[in-house]
C-alpha cells in the first residue's frame, strides 16, 4: 500500500499542481447562464443604441415589468426543467387560478382574500395532480401536461360561462378586500420618481429564494439529481416522487402569484387567455441555460431568459419597429440559446 500512501499525501495537499488556476472569467464561462447573459448584454446595448428612449428609467421600468410577468413563472418552470420535466399547462393554469379567485368570491360574495386562498389551493392542487399522474403512470410529462392543458382550457371557458354567464369573469373591483389584495399583487413602488411594479420585486425575491434552494439546500441537490439521473437518485435514497411532485407544485405556486397579479391589475379575467404562454416560460428557461433533458441549469438563467424576452418585446416597440418581427426574433434567440447549451453540455460530459 505504499503507492496509495504517497498518492494520499499528494491528494491532501491543499493546492494541487495539476489544477491550473482558472481565472474568474474562465469560471464564469462554465456557468449554465453564460450564453443568456452574453445575449442579454448584446440585446441591451443594441436597443440602447437604436432607441434613445429605451434607457430612460420609465421605459426600463416597463421592460422590467414585462420581464417579471414571464420571469415569475420562469422561476418555477426552470426548477421543474432542471428536475427533468416540463409543464405545458402553466399558461392556462395561471388563468384557472385567477378565475377561481374571482368567481368564487363573486358567486359567494365573500371577501376576495377567501377566493385568493382557494386559488392557491387550486394552483397547488393542479401541480400536485400533474406530478402525481406523471409519477403513477410514468408517461412523459409532455403527454400528461398536454392533457391537463386541454382540460384546463375547457374548464376555464365552460365553468366561466356556467357560473358567470360570459366569457370573462365579472368585475370584483367593488368587493371587500379588493384594495388590499391589489396592494399586495398589483401595486407600484415609487423609486426616485419612477413607478416600478411590485411584480418586479416579487420576481427578484423568487429568483433569490429559488437560487438559494438550488445551490444551498438538500432539496436543491435532489432537484439536480432527479433531473440528471432519476434511477441513480432513487438508488441512493433520494425521494424522487416527492421531489418531482414538489416541483410541479412550485410551478403551481408561481402560477398563483401571476394569476393574482392578472386579476387585481385589471379586476376581470378573460377565460380564454393564457393559451400559448406556457411556451414563453419554457423559452425563458431554455434561453437561460436549463437543459430540456434535465439535471443542469439555474434559476438566475431563467430570470435572464425572461429579461431577454422583456427587452425584445418592449424594445421593438421603443425602437418603433413593426412588432410583427418579434416572434421571428424570439425563435432565433431560442435556436441560438439551445445550440450554446448543447455545446456546454457536451463539454461538461467530455472526459
Amino acid at each position, binding site marked *: 500500500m505504499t503507492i496509495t500512501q504517497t498518492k494520499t499525501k499528494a491528494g491532501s495537499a491543499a493546492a494541487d499542481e495539476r489544477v491550473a488556476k482558472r481565472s474568474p472569467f474562465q469560471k464564469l464561462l462554465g456557468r449554465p447562464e453564460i450564453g443568456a447573459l452574453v445575449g442579454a448584454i448584446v440585446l441591451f446595448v443594441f436597443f440602447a443604441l437604436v432607441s434613445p428612449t429605451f434607457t430612460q428609467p420609465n421605459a426600463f421600468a416597463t421592460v422590467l415589468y414585462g420581464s417579471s410577468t414571464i420571469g415569475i413563472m420562469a422561476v418555477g418552470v426552470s426548477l421543474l426543467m432542471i428536475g427533468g420535466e416540463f409543464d405545458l399547462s402553466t399558461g392556462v393554469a395561471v388563468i384557472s387560478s385567477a378565475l377561481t379567485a374571482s368567481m368564487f368570491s363573486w358567486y359567494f360574495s365573500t371577501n376576495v382574500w377567501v377566493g385568493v386562498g382557494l386559488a392557491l389551493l387550486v394552483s397547488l392542487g393542479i401541480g400536485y395532480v400533474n406530478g402525481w399522474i406523471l409519477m403513477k403512470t410514468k408517461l412523459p410529462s409532455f403527454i400528461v401536461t398536454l392533457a391537463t392543458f386541454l382540460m384546463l382550457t375547457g374548464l376555464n371557458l365552460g365553468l366561466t360561462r356556467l357560473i358567470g354567464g360570459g366569457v370573462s369573469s365579472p368585475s370584483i373591483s367593488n368587493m371587500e378586500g379588493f384594495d388590499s389584495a391589489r396592494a399586495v399583487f398589483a401595486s407600484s413602488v415609487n423609486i426616485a420618481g419612477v413607478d416600478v411594479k411590485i411584480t418586479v420585486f416579487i420576481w427578484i425575491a423568487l429568483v433569490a429564494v429559488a437560487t438559494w434552494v438550488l445551490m444551498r*439546500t438538500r432539496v436543491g441537490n435532489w432537484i439536480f*439529481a432527479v433531473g440528471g439521473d432519476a*434511477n441513480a437518485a432513487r438508488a441512493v435514497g433520494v425521494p424522487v416522487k416527492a421531489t418531482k411532485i414538489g416541483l410541479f407544485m412550485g410551478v403551481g405556486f408561481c402560477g398563483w402569484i401571476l394569476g393574482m397579479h392578472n386579476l387585481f391589475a385589471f379586476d376581470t379575467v378573460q377565460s380564454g387567455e393564457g393559451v400559448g404562454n406556457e411556451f414563453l416560460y419554457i423559452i425563458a428557461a431554455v434561453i437561460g441555460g436549463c437543459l430540456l433533458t434535465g439535471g443542469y441549469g439555474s434559476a438566475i438563467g431563467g430570470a435572464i431568459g425572461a429579461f431577454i424576452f422583456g427587452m425584445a418585446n418592449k424594445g421593438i416597440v421603443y425602437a418603433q419597429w413593426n412588432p410583427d418581427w418579434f416572434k421571428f426574433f424570439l425563435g432565433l434567440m431560442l435556436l441560438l440559446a439551445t445550440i450554446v447549451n448543447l455545446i456546454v453540455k457536451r463539454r461538461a460530459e467530455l472526459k
Partner: protein
Amino acid sequence: MNANDIDQQTLLQNEKDPLTHTPVHLLSLEGVGKHYGNIIALSDVTMAVDNGRVTCVLGDNGAGKSTLIKIIAGLHQHDAGVLNVMGEERKFDSPRDALDAGIATVYQDLAVVPLMPIWRNFFLGSELTSGFGPFKSMDVEKMKEITLKELAAMGIDLRDVEQPIGQLSGGERQCVAIARAVYFGAKVLILDEPTAALGVKQSGVVLRYILQARDRGLGVIFITHNPHHAFPVGDRFLLLKRGKSIGYYDKKDITLDELTAQMAGGAELAELAHELEQLGGHGDIVKEVKGEVADVTQTTGKTYG
C-alpha cells in the same frame, strides 16, 4: 467496538461476529428465492456475510446475480426464504430501508449523476445540513472538505471536487462510489460487477479498494463473472447458475482452477467439442476444446462428454 479497529487477524482468531461477540452473521440468506410472475429468477440461495470478509457471488449473465443484489439492496422483495441482518429477520421495502440497516450498494451504473459535481454526488441523499426549520441549508464547505479527505483515505487522488463526476474515469467513479458507501457507515458493501467495464490496470485498482474496504471492517459482497478477480480477494464464494446456487465454498476448500472450471461449465464445453466434431473440418479447435474439457475434468473430479 469501532469497525475500523477490526482487522483480518482478530477476525480469523475467533469465528464470531466481532461487533456483538455472538455467533451471528452480519448478513445471512437462507433459501432465498424470487419470481417475477411465472419466471423463477432465483431459488434457494444461501450465503453469509461477515465483518472484514469478502463474499464473492459468481455467475454468468442471467445467473440471477442482479436479482440477488436487488433483494439485498431493497429494490425488490424476496418471496421465499429468510434474510437476516445481525440475526434479525428483515424484508426491505426500499433502498432507503436497506441503507438504514447499513447495507450500501455500488451499482454497475454506479448510481452517480454525471452532470453533478463530485461532492454533490458524494453526499447525494445524505447531505449535511446546518441551521434549522425552513432555513436549513447545506454545509457546502464541510461537505467538500470531507469528500476530498475521504477519497484521499481510499487512495483516490483527486484534482477538484467541483468537477462533474462524469469527467472521471470508470475506475475513479467506482472508487468514489465505494468511498461514499464506506463514509456513510455501511456495514455491508455490495459491489455489482465493479470490474466488468474496466481494463486490466483499472480492475487492479478497484480490487485494491475492495481489500481496503474489507480491512476497514466492512462485510463485502463482490459480484463478478470473473473468477480471476474474485479468487484473490474473496473469502467465500457463491456460484450461481440459472437462478440456482451450484456451490458455496470457503476459500480453503477451493482453488482458482476449480472455481474457473465450475464457472466455465465442463458439460457445456464437452457438448461444444461434440458438435464441432460432428461438423467436421475443425480439427484444431476440437482438439483445443477437448483439452479444456480434460482440464475441467481433472480439477473438478467429474467426467463430462
